[in-house]
């Protein structure tokens, strides 16, 4: 792969192989389309404008999947009067990825009001994806009125409790968690003791070299508690994953891209395919953020994830819809 030195950020300031300053710089670039790849604990950044020079085979690694989130089917207010169209655009974007994803993860708020026709419409649109397997976790909008019974009837086959489960793909262990049910007044997201016990048991016999991907709707780290952007008991969940060399946590809920690295854990939130929300504290409340129509699609997006065996973490690339 031809890459000039200026595209690489390789500064091992803390002598632990993690380029934190470069990471912050890369996050600033991410909005304009940079691929930030952790390889062997060292962050490298590749400009998307030179994507045609990428060696797809080298970058594809062994496992490729895409994350979409917060489709809110049924929402029809000014922030986006046509969420079906933007979800279709997201599917088109996923289908056009140079490295075809094997499956999709939907990190919740599939529907806006948990109405049957809303779920039906999403299912219909997702049929247009080349990747036929979609793995879901519910958002708080998907469990309105019935604590998630309809969600589980539709998407919960093989899941436990409120809809949690795990599966393996090419040696990577995926865990889908539900943190949007049994919420307490004044609280944040909640996993609950039954799910935590299941998680501890689920991962305890895995080798520490097994890459782990955890996906759940509400962020599993404290993004902005004032707006409910966090999970009350996520620390306990993360404690069960301490032994693993590579843990990626993929969330949705906040309708914007945010990333944080803490030791061996990379936390990442995806953009919504429906409408953006304001940055923490930049508005009165975390509601839908209206932007000029021509800007909307640049604030919606999909996430492409690639796993290269032998590398520390997954390569996570966010793309805008337009």
């Amino acid at each position, binding site marked *: 792969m031809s890459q000039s030195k200026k595209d690489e950020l390789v500064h091992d300031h803390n002598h632990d192989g993690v380029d934190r300053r470069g990471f912050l710089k890369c996050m600033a670039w991410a909005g304009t389309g940079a691929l930030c790849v952790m390889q062997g604990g060292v962050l490298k950044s590749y400009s998307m404008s030179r994507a045609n020079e990428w060696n797809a085979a080298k970058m594809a690694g062994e496992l490729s999947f895409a994350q979409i989130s917060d489709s809110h089917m049924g929402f029809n207010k000014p922030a986006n009067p046509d969420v079906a169209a933007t979800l279709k655009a997201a599917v088109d974007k996923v289908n056009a990825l140079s490295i075809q994803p094997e499956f999709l993860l939907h990190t919740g708020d599939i529907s806006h009001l948990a109405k049957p026709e809303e779920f039906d419409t999403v299912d219909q649109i997702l049929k247009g994806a080349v990747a036929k397997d979609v793995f879901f976790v519910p958002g708080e*909008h998907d469990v*309105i009125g019935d604590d998630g019974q309809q969600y589980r009837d539709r998407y919960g086959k093989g899941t436990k409790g409120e809809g949690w489960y795990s599966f393996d793909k090419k040696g990577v262990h995926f865990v889908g968690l539900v943190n949007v049910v049994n919420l307490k*007044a*004044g*609280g944040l997201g909640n996993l609950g003791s039954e799910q935590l016990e299941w998680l501890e048991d689920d991962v305890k016999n895995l080798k520490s070299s097994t890459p782990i991907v955890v996906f759940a709707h509400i962020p599993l780290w404290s993004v902005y508690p004032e707006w409910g952007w966090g999970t009350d008991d996520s620390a306990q969940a993360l404690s069960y994953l301490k032994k693993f060399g590579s843990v990626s946590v993929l969330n949705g809920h906040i309708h914007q891209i945010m990333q944080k690295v803490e030791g061996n854990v990379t936390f990442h939130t995806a953009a919504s395919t429906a409408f953006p929300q304001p940055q923490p504290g930049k508005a009165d409340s975390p*509601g*839908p953020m209206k932007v000029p129509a021509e800007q909307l699609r640049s604030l919606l997006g999909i996430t492409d994830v690639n796993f290269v065996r032998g590398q520390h973490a997954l390569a996570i690339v966010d793309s805008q819809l337009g």
Partner: protein
Amino acid sequence: MKEILYRIGLAALVITVFALLTPVDKHAHAAGQGQAGTNATVKIDNFSFGPAALTVPVGTTVTWSNQDDIPHTVVSTDGVFKSKALDTDDKFSFVFGKPGTYSYFCSIHPKMTGQVIVQ
């Protein structure tokens, strides 16, 4: 002398007029107050209940009205009342027949909390 008396008189008149025009607000500002046996409203907007603490007499019908562009619910923490999902312009009403403090929250966005104090 006449002029001074005139000015004092005018000042007194002006002060009296202002005193009459200034509304004497019997309603508490931190907590809303409703009249006996009638209705009170809680407006839901910007991910909050307004007023967050509402004091009403026994027998009041409280109506929550969602003016936000996102759905919310009204759920009592003690299982006393529970609305279905309220989209924009949807309403939910409950008659408070017994005194007490009723805490509630939005089950979709649990950071949103409120209280109805029935006296």
